[in-house]
């Protein structure tokens, strides 16, 4: 806060409407004081604070350096490196548009992830268990898989009636491939003994798939889900640039073409936040589903 208030802004930086970065710091400051207060009464939060304190301090330090280099002394081209005040100002000024963009992107992602995820699981399981299916599917995955989903855009845009559908298709593809590969790989690596045990109890094929194959392959499936999540964000941004009327990717592209780099940065921050939230969800989900792995592998 002191750094932000005491060092005057470089005259080269265009002025913002208000000290938005300072507001953010104030919010952060109040929050951390609150957490500190709670930590005196709560053992768990206290422990967490001790372990994650240095990282937070480091983050603030980085923000300070960025603030000094870009904002206060304007050591880098002002056009491309706006002051933090102006970046965080965007969250206030553009909040409605950004909100809509996030919602639109989230919807797109959800559709793509749901379709791609379930299709990927299905094909992965079929490839893993069915030799004939694997034989015919293998060249297909080998050819389609390595092609970046976004490079389908010209074809896809003419195939689908709306660019929205095209975007869903590309995200679906980017999710489908890693999940298919990791699921089928996971199934193929299951020890034969697990199936033989089930055989000696007279288990049916479907029962073996559901109660031996899938649980045993689940760690690998989750790996696929992680790849799919990060991949789907990359595809999302590119797909939205092609003709969507809303979404973070569209927003980034639009603001870049208007040379409003403060808005671009704000969009990027938002994107990072979204991606992290998605990954966090996945981690919590994994923790629930793969609780048994704790102690078997380095968690």
């Amino acid at each position, binding site marked *: 806060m002191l750094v932000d208030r005491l060092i005057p802004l470089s005259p080269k930086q265009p002025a913002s409407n208000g000290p938005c970065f300072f507001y953010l710091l104030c919010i952060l400051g109040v929050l951390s004081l609150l957490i500190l207060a709670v930590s005196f009464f709560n053992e768990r939060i206290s422990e967490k604070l001790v372990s994650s304190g240095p990282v937070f301090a480091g983050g603030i330090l980085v923000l300070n350096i960025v603030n000094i280099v870009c904002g206060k002394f304007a050591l880098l081209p002002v056009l491309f490196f706006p002051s933090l005040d102006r970046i965080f100002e965007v969250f206030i000024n553009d909040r409605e548009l950004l909100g809509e963009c996030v919602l639109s992107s989230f919807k797109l992602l959800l559709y793509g992830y749901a379709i791609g995820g379930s299709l990927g699981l299905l094909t992965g399981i079929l490839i893993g268990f069915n030799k004939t299916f694997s034989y015919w599917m293998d060249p297909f995955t080998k050819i389609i898989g390595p092609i970046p989903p976004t490079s389908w855009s010209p074809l896809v845009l003419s195939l689908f009636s709306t660019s929205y559908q095209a975007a869903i298709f590309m995200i679906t593809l980017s999710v489908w491939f890693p999940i298919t590969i990791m699921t089928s790989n996971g199934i193929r690596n299951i020890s034969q003994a697990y199936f033989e045990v089930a055989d*000696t109890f007279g*288990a049916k094929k479907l029962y073996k798939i559901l*109660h031996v194959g899938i649980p045993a392959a689940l760690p690998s499936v989750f790996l696929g889900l992680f790849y799919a999540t990060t991949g789907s964000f990359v595809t999302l941004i590119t797909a939205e640039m092609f003709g969507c009327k809303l979404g973070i990717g569209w927003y980034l592209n639009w603001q870049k073409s208007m040379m409003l780099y403060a808005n671009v940065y704000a969009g990027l921050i938002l994107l990072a936040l979204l991606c992290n939230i998605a990954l966090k969800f996945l981690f919590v989900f994994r923790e629930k589903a*793969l609780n048994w792995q704790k102690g078997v592998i380095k968690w």
Partner: protein
Amino acid sequence: MVGEIKIENVSKSFVNPDKTSVTALENISLNVEAGSFVSLIGPSGCGKTTLLRAISGLGLADEGQIYVDDEPVKGPGADRGFAFQQSNLYPWLTIKENIAFGLKARGIYKEKKSDVDEYIEMVNLKGFENSYPHQLSGGMNQRASLARALVGKPKVLLLDEPLGALDAFTRMNMQDEILKIQHLHSITMIMVTHDVDEAVYLSDRVVIMTPRPAKVEEVIDIQLSRPRARGSQDFIQYRTKILKILNYAGENKEPEYYL
């Protein structure tokens, strides 16, 4: 009594990666009385496990036929339990869920719920029902595995050296445990082992097999009263006799290394 096994002229061969074929079993015939305990003993790699898997249906014979209570073996089934060399418990299931797996697979878990608890108690794992396999010792896992194989009340239990990986004390305890179970439920048991003492201690009959291709070298009836004393004169005589035959059967016939 149920659980009589007839093995008639069974042969089986495998194809190596280099396309050569290896005969694992050659013309084996053997009858196992219902409710008896039979050990298969012989040099390692001689095809004992192959025979056991053929009885279980996990690996069918090329020629000949195996009958369990006059029913030909066509594939694995719940009437023949199998205790593997490793415990092979499912790491994603708790001990109790593992033991209940076979019942659930057959859709009879609801009626047999109490059996699971009974068997957990029998193998002394009460208090560990909700642990995962990796949290327990090898011996405990092997006991759980045995309970899993037994809880469905199979007519026949096939044991593929399930005690091989255990320390001497746990092993002896488990041997008594197995005998108790066999006596209680009169299950026919066939065990593959390398341990002559174990074979003499447990079996009604010991089947000595020759190395590749496996044939039945000799069948020895162990006529000792139970419980058997491991140090008694008769016990040691049986042991010496089997060891002699095993030497004759080819183990250490030629030195394995030349200097």
